[in-house]
């Protein structure tokens, strides 16, 4: 380890970290926004579920590197455009979450839905304030997997010249400089742990009743 390298290159390291966070987390947010309505449809209409779930699992099987490269031909973007990575990771996030959302909404007890209806909740408000909150634990579990795998997938993008912490790997390798690679690995793992921790905390705050039940 050449420790002195790190303070001398904070601009490079922080820049790579920032790019990495943006490339990994925008897809999680966009994916969530897309997956909730799709999952809701899948939980309501069995025919749509029969289409969405198998499609999602096939999409999830396609290697990320392949998607990064084939997308420009479909989107008309440049091969080095970071948008390819964002779109690819969004597809994975949606593929992962649709199933979680559909299962979680399907698992909301019918009695609770009926009780909410009897109390005068209209379907839209019932969904937002009763069914969706009850689906939060499963949703958070899906988001944690999506966020952590996105964080490690972004660095693969460095192979095709996309920025982020993966750049530290390619550059460190070309310069035969393990310190740079190790810095990148440690930051990637730390980033994954921090984001994972944040999601756990968000999940706890979004489901106060779970803690209340556990303490008694």
């Amino acid at each position, binding site marked *: 380890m050449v420790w002195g390298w790190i303070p001398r290159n904070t601009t490079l390291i922080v820049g790579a970290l920032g790019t990495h966070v943006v490339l990994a987390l925008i897809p999680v947010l966009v994916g969530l926004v897309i997956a909730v309505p799709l999952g809701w449809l899948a939980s309501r209409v069995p025919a749509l579920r029969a289409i969405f779930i198998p499609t999602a699992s*096939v999409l999830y*099987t*396609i*290697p*990320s*590197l*392949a*998607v*990064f*490269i*084939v997308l*420009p*031909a479909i989107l008309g973007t440049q*091969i080095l455009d970071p948008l390819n990575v964002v779109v690819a990771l969004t597809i994975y996030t949606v593929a992962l979450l649709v199933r979680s959302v559909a299962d979680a909404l399907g698992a909301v007890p019918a009695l609770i839905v009926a009780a909410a209806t009897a109390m005068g909740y209209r379907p839209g408000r019932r969904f937002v304030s009763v069914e969706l909150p009850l689906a939060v634990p499963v949703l958070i579990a899906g988001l944690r997997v999506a966020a*952590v*795998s996105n*964080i*490690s997938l972004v*660095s*693969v993008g*460095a*192979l*095709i*010249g996309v920025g982020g*912490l*993966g750049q*530290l*790997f*390619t550059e*460190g*390798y070309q310069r*035969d*400089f*393990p310190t740079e*690679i*190790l810095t*990148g*690995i440690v930051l*990637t*793992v730390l980033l*994954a*742990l921090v984001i*994972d921790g944040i999601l756990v905390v968000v999940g706890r705050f979004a489901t106060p009743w779970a803690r209340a039940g556990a303490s008694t």
Partner: protein
Amino acid sequence: MTLLFSYLFDPAHWSGPGGIPARVGEHLFYSVLALALGAIVAVPLGAFIGHTHRGGFLVVGTANGMRALPELGLLTLLVLLIGINLLPVTIALAVLAVPPLLAGTYSGVRNVDAGAVDAARGMGMREWQILTKVELPNALPLVLGGFRAAALQVIATAAVAAYVSFGGLGRLLIDGLKTLDYSQMAAGAIMVAVLALVVEGLLALVQRAVVSPGLRGGGRRSPTAEITRTAVPARADNPEPAGVTS
């Protein structure tokens, strides 16, 4: 769109040492090595932890931590430390195979019906026999599920080996990027995806073939369950079922 397939469908690229079949062979070779190493490490460990019911938190922690490790970083670091040979490639890819295999084996063995394990112990089986004759066969669907996930991950990622001057389908990606030959990159990408999907399909068939029929089909519909189900109405017909009255 024609750019996507022009390299792939050119017959000139389907023969010789740099041809697509040779690259597929190399790709599978690295993948098999990595899966073997991953299985040697993860399956005994998962089986041991699942059998003894000790250290389960370790499995969850290790599996999640390893999932966050960036493959490209690990590979480049190992190559710089060990040198350019198959060892760093195998280790770096095996790291991907360990979490799903470990989690699959552990939860498979852990969740075997406690009654079956007790019955085996009561019949005088030794711990080793319980593990190999009762727990592992019952855990097979989850172990194989873990193996499928591992194989998919490893094949999808084995392309990184080309970055440290090995072969495999990643060669097409790296060489294509260097010469800005998009159709060559696309050929590599498409072949990786096809290979992953084909292997996934084949492993699904293998799983179907080797898993005990008693464990197949979602629910607990074993042959014995069939017998007990038919036995119930037969007993109901009996005006004095055993063990109820008298």
